[in-house]
């Protein structure tokens, strides 16, 4: 029988791998950052799911909330870096930025 927990776990794992796949192929830094966030969401979901039905659900939920919070800050910093990169290089394609390098 498929429980809610299984669905969450499978979805979370899928999200992680989808995120990694799109990180490896994206040609735009903003998309790369978004893909990283997909990975983080996948991890959060897995963490949340693994706490379901456990004795100490509050703990896993707390960790998920903490992770979301940290994820938001990371997102903000990442966006700031991307803005700086765009100002300096005029492009967001990592391959082009690599070619422009010294």
């Amino acid at each position: 029988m498929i429980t809610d927990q299984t669905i969450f776990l499978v979805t979370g794992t899928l999200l992680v791998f989808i995120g990694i796949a799109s990180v490896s192929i994206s040609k735009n830094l903003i998309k790369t950052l978004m893909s990283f966030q997909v990975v983080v969401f996948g991890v959060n979901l897995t963490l949340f799911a693994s706490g379901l039905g456990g004795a100490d659900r509050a703990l896993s939920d707390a960790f998920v909330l903490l992770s979301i919070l940290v994820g938001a800050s990371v997102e903000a910093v990442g966006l700031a870096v991307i803005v700086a990169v765009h100002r300096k290089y005029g492009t967001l394609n990592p391959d082009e930025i690599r070619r422009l390098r010294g």
Partner: protein
Amino acid sequence: MILAEWLLWLVPLSGAALVPVVSHTKKEATGWFAVAVASASLLLSLYGALTFSAAETENLAVWLGFLNVQLQVTIDGLSVLVSVFVAFLSLLILIFSLGYMKGEGGLARYYSLVLLFVGSMLGLVMAGNLIQFYFFWELVGLCSALLIAFWSDREAARRAGLKAFVVTHIGDASLLIAVIVLFNALQTTSFASVLASVGGSSLQGTALLTVGVLIIVGAMGKSAQVPLHVWLPDAMEGPSTVSALIHAATMVNAGVYLVIRMFPLFQASGLLMDLLLGVGLLSASVGAVNALASEDLKRVLAYSTISQLGLMFVALGLGSWVAATYHMVSQGLFKALAFLAAGSVIHATGTRNLEEMGGLKRVMKYTYVGFLAAVLAMSGLPPLIGFWSKDAIVSAAFAGNSTVGFALIAISVVTASYGFRALIKVFHGEPAQQRSVRESATTMVAPIAVLAVSVVVAWLALDAQSFVNIGSLAFPSATTFTLSMGALVVGALVSYVAFSARPSATKQLMERSQAMVRLRDALLEGLGFDRLYNYLYARGVKGLASLTSKVETGALGWDAALVLLTLILLTVLVAGGLV
């Protein structure tokens, strides 16, 4: 609780953190602040030495509970003597820096790093266990690399700093492995407990040999012994004050100090003693002949340090750690003097090339007297400090193995010869350059004068055992005395004839003989150690790099995905209990 033994290294360490603040509020005061901190450290170590009564280990608090490590200091004759010596030299070098570094940029960085350097060395000297020792050992290495590369706008300086860091880390890695092996075997790293377990069931035979060899390799890296000596000649890219610090007071003494500190461990195995002796003899001779050929004043002194450190290893290999300790102190004194005098010369002439100097005796009288005292002490003229410590080693050699004794006499001939060669080329003869040269400022001459006096009189303090009692300096036997005086005279005469009386004949000889030219080129190249390492690097490391570059392509997305996948793989492995 003797507070001084803690404060003497904690004061310079905190001083290093305060230097940027001082520099920010009052820029001119930076140097004087560093001098004040070093003076405080010297006073504390002197206080510790004068109140020293019995050897003990003092614990302050638990530092790393899971490793069974306490914050502790070792108080015995050795650590007390060396701490006073390090603090004394550091203070003089800092005073010299006031004049020498005047007008340079980045002085806050300079003084901060020097204080950190000195504090780490003092912490290393006082450390009561291997973990604490290793912590400061790494800090000393880091500070020396950063100070060598102090003039970081120069390519050569950056490369020299990096080279020092990499080469000494071969030794550091070896020492770290030794610490881990020791901890696994004994569950403790305190010097007292480790030395007490030597020969016991957990530390004998192969285990003892392994640990001993690893520690010796560690000491070879720090103390610039062949074949890990290649960083020291290049380290001359740093300011002369830094060279003086590295060669006399801090860095290179750390390796010898480690071996002295753990000496019972080496004494337990004849093989380890032979290894120490062999490494020492090799370095003493390689350093000496290289110093004879070098055309850079500071490189002469650098090779001389390698040679003198080799003598300390020889003393250790012969079982005389007292002679090694005294030679460490005496080498520190006369090498600091030589480097400060060389710094004064370089500051005045603007060159390090021996061929572009000459005739400075008349214009730089005080510097000349200082350098002369250093050369005489290095060659072993009685009653200068170098005579007592070097002849103690030679006596130990003749008492044990007379072949080693004669090898040391031969090295003494070369030592006197390269010392006088540098002296003659810099200070005697005709001036080689047109620009007017003047004696350096008082802040630079005063430390040179103090050191020159201490090189002459320091044996009184050591010999009388009034200061710290670790063993006496005996007057060498008549045979030893005659042989080493003969070596001094022969070496000095050879240099006098070759470079002062008949320099043109020497030049002709060098030009005519193909063998001599080839020999000189080989020596100028440092006997090809650098070429060997470059070859190994090109074949080994670069090959590996080209292999890994096929996986790590440098494309952002691919590399990031690789990192994430590896993380997941590791998590699965750890969760599955496979690692």
